[in-house]
């Protein structure tokens, strides 16, 4: 369920690191907790984000939840799919429904992130 090649945060985001680019999404556990997702609010490309600070928000039918940036850097790309089809976050959270790609400015921060086994233990699955 939780791919080995991803890294995870306590706030239920995942990160895929390829070179100096980090793709960020929310975990399957997060989408299940949120329920039907109806709206995703993301920063614009070019925005700077800081590790641990708000990156955007995800709204389910019931409530709004913040997404925190796992890493520091600049938003290189946002997933346009989510503005027209936010429900994809429920269907494919670890794949096509990624949120943003970051150009990392402090790649060493990635060392703080959890591996799949640790994340699974953390959420008790």
């Amino acid at each position, binding site marked *: 369920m939780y791919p080995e090649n991803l890294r995870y945060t306590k706030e239920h985001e995942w990160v895929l690191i390829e070179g100096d680019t980090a793709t960020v999404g929310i975990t399957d556990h997060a989408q299940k907790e949120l329920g*039907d997702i109806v709206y995703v609010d993301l920063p614009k490309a070019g925005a700077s984000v800081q590790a641990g600070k708000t990156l955007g928000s995800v*709204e389910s039918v019931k409530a709004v939840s913040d997404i925190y940036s796992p890493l520091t850097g600049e938003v290189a790309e946002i997933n346009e799919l989510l503005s027209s089809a936010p429900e994809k976050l429920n269907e494919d959270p670890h794949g096509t429904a990624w949120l943003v790609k970051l150009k990392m400015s402090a790649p060493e921060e990635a060392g703080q992130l959890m591996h799949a086994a640790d994340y699974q233990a953390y959420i008790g699955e």
Partner: protein
Amino acid sequence: MNPAVSLKTTPLNEIHRRLGAKMVDFGGWDMPVQYTSILEEHHAVRRAVGLFDVGHMGEIEVRGPEALNLVEYVTTNAVSRLEIGQAQYSGLLYRHGGFADDVLVHKVDDDHYFLCVNASNQEKDHEHISIANSWKTNVEFASDRYAQMAIQGPKALATLQKLTPVKLDGIRNYHFVDGEVSGVPARVARTGYTGEDGFEIYVAPDEAPAIWTGLLEAGEEFGILPCGLGARNTLRLEAKMALYGHEIHASITPYEADLGWIVKLEKPDFIGKRALEKQKAEGIRRKLVGFEMRGRGIARDGYEVLIDGLPAGWVTSGGPSPTLNKNIGLCYLPAELAAPGRTIQILIRNQPVEAITVATPFYKRAK
């Protein structure tokens, strides 16, 4: 300490857990917020039928030759106009005119009234009514004797009819019958909190699990779904039905909440009457109004409302409307600005997002 230990449960709690419901602490009650998906559950009610556990709601019984006098005194609507077997939406107010609760008053007999009240207010309501009881009539806190289920949607009647000899199409809207469901005594009321046709069923707690299971089986051919509090909230918002703690509370009067129709000033004295007479004469300062989002974003309870950039009111409920596929909400605005068609801004995470006031209800079922 496990906080779940102190939560109150309904007789259907074990069934919800077996069905895999997501459970939440709802005002001290361990209740299902959804089973599979709020959207699916919402659509099931609008298109076919859904079943809700509403056993957390409170029941208060008032009996005796003076029962009418007491119920008339503690509620705003005209209890004397009820016939036996009729139910009435009403307000339970404080002297200053604010809501202690909203209630459904059922006339069981000339000397017997059955009140259904909100879960989180039930003890307070019982005390409120008892203190006003100068007639020394019998006021019983009866919540422990009842479970309650709501079956709602265009196929609710066909589903429930399989389990009861009561002729359901003979029960008019806001009327009820004491009969049997699945062979056990039940009060069957044509009431609900979804904007659809449907019934609310009151039974002894021990009987609830068998009836719940029987209804899910009976509704299978129609695509019945068990529905949680999440769908209950989106459904009632579309129908613009008030939720205590949101549209109505101790600082809000029925006139402000657009519920003037439940106030009968011509009836004899009732708690809050003088305050309401004064407010009616002077006019209200704020009023509940519906809105639709025009910009991207979802309004939520508590968000600030701006007009021309200045603070003007607050959102009482908001969210996506699955039926209309729009983002909707209710808010309080200065009365003179509350007409439909006004452009307002909702402050969503410090960003003003455009919305427009609209006529309500947002959704009304075709008769």
